[in-house]
């Protein structure tokens, strides 16, 4: 048995540890963004990095997202590995042009001559009572852009492992941090973190035989809770945590759906044009003859993110997931 101290750690601490370890190992890793230095980030995710590594390695930038990401592009051209913080989901929109027109396609444009090893950290999603522009789930925009990896952790262990893998990646990664899981805890040893595997693999969080819940990020705990509740009603649900939206792990997802014959995609981003449509289509294309029911989606409503006093009605909760599971007892209209 290992003697490493295992104690409760939060996701925010695991993320901080990932950056700290990456910076200690590799002098080209630079953290930058608004408030990441002295303050340690508005969520304290970069706490202590400026003190430990200096302001040149963990830099408080002017308040300008396009400028933050645009200068990171130039830094990457000169051999650095910038880790950029976008503070809040909707604050990243001014940087979209840099992300889409340059970060995503610089490798392609230069036939591999100018890779962009940039990690763009975006705290995303709702459930923390944030006012307008503080709770968007923008993953579909990023997923639609070739050249970007899009990953999102749901556990403390994954927060560390995926962020290490993202920083180590020679390609740009949009790293979506589920804000409402920042303070989720796990027994986790920061002294002996789990091995870092390359991004792109989904994981089965709970095995089951009746149906598969395909989910990621902030909706993973919701699905785990739903699976537990469903067990009482005789449903044995499998929960697949995608972890990476791009690249997409068809293998793990389809293996699960072929076993269970039923699937529900769960996320809090809007349903129309959202990630669930792509996932449902992929699953249907590959598993059609194994399916006992249509692939269903449980998503946020197709509305701009609601004001905080109403957000609980918008966010897919356990009941909405269970309702969808009930609808999986589908029979073709005769």
């Amino acid at each position, binding site marked *: 048995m290992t003697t490493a101290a295992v104690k409760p750690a939060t996701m925010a601490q695991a993320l901080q540890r990932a950056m700290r370890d990456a910076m200690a190992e590799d002098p080209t890793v630079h953290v930058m963004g608004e408030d990441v230095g002295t303050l340690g980030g508005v969520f304290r995710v970069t706490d202590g990095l400026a003190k430990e590594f200096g302001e*040149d390695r963990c830099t408080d*930038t*002017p308040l*300008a997202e*396009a*400028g933050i*990401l*645009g*200068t*990171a*592009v*130039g*830094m*990457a*051209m*000169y*051999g*650095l590995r910038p880790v950029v913080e976008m503070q809040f989901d909707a604050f990243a929109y*001014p940087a979209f*042009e*840099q992300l889409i*027109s*340059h970060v995503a*396609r*610089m*490798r*392609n*444009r*230069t*036939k*591999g*001559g*100018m*890779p962009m090893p940039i990690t763009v950290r975006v705290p995303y999603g709702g459930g923390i009572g944030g006012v307008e522009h503080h709770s968007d789930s923008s993953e579909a925009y990023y997923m639609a852009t*070739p*050249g970007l*990896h899009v990953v999102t952790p749901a556990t403390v262990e994954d927060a560390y492992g995926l962020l290490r893998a993202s920083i180590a*990646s*020679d*390609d740009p990664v949009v790293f979506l941090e589920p804000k409402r899981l920042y303070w989720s805890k796990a027994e986790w040893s920061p002294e002996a973190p789990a091995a870092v595997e390359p991004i*792109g693999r989904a994981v089965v969080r709970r095995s089951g035989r009746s149906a598969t819940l395909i989910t990621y990020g902030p909706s993973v705990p919701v699905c785990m809770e739903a699976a537990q509740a469903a067990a009482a009603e005789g449903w044995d649900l499998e929960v697949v945590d995608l972890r990476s939206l*791009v*690249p*997409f792990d*068809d*293998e793990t997802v389809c293996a699960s759906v072929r076993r269970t014959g039923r699937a529900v995609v769960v996320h809090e981003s809007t349903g129309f044009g959202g990630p669930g449509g792509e996932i449902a289509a992929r699953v249907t294309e590959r598993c059609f003859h194994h399916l006992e029911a249509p692939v269903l989606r449980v998503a946020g409503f197709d509305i701009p993110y609601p004001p905080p006093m109403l957000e609980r009605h918008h966010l897919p909760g356990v009941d909405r997931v269970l309702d969808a599971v009930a609808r999986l007892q589908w029979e073709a209209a005769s």
Partner: protein
Amino acid sequence: MTVQELPGSAAAAYRPTPPPAWQPRTDPAPLLPDPEPYRVLGTEAAASADPELLLRLYAELVRGRRYNAQATALTKQGRLAVYPSSTGQEACEVGAALALEERDWLFPSYRDTLAAVARGLDPVQALTLLRGDWHTGYDPHEHRVAPLCTPLATQLPHAVGLAHAARLKGDDVVALAMVGDGGTSEGDFHEALNFAAVWNAPVVFLVQNNGFAISVPLAKQTAAPSLAHKAVGYGMPGRLVDGNDAVAVHEVLGQAVARARRGGGPTLIEAVTYRMDAHTNADDATRYRADSEVETWRAHDPIQLLERELTERGLLDDGTRQAAAEAAETMAADLRERMNADPVLNPMDLFEHVYARQTTQLREQAALLRAELDAEEEAR
């Protein structure tokens, strides 16, 4: 009677003072540009200009003019999808590029092929984007030329980031970022200049004010006294230069580069010039500007300005003139010949450079294309 004069009242003690935190951060006066664009040619200063430099600039201007003409001709033959000519602006292109050291970096816009070629880029490779066989046809690291940038002003923050990174590594590298007058209205222009000034990054911003952003004249682009005046708002010096005076451009750029290299920070330079051709071959410039205006600028042609100086100083004889013309013609013939050959393209390259490691999805799509290509081959 004013309030202050009331004896004994509380108001008498009141003196408006600035808010406690306010103090001027820097003296704006030294940052302001001279209102007259700086010129050398046609002034007494020209007499002391280095003859070798003058002749080098001359040869490059002549070559650049020929390059613009040849590339424009290639669009008419369908060999280039589009070409944004810099005819009339050659002094900016050449004067700026030659002010850089080999280790410095150039961040060109789509109109700045001449500056890239002046840094040693293969003339054909500089046109790859415009021919359409790949987006960037050269290795950016070889001559330290970033990919020609099509979105407006988005390359400016890249220049700042690269210069900043170089300084962090202890390298005395300077980045030159080129942009047009229209580009100065973009948000990235503002953010780049602000970052550069705050970080004291070794960057030089060169705005080629050629009068129009496609069809929109400068008067509808900005209400600033000049584009160089914008510098003071960021806390960096602004300079105005006659963009058709290659010697002046080279000198002003050289000073800004030297200043950046010794840690003095960024400079914003506005070169006042004129785009003699349309925006691209797809544009009809007669719809938005008068012939008389074009003719006025023709009398201020960058090559003629330099020729006059060279002639007066006895530096330009028929032989020199002919040598420059012949060198330009050789370049044009080579360009024509190589551009008239169909490039050999490998469609499988489409999947090669999206990610460092191909995703499963891309491998599947690559297999699909491979099968299509094989079927095509078999049918042939």
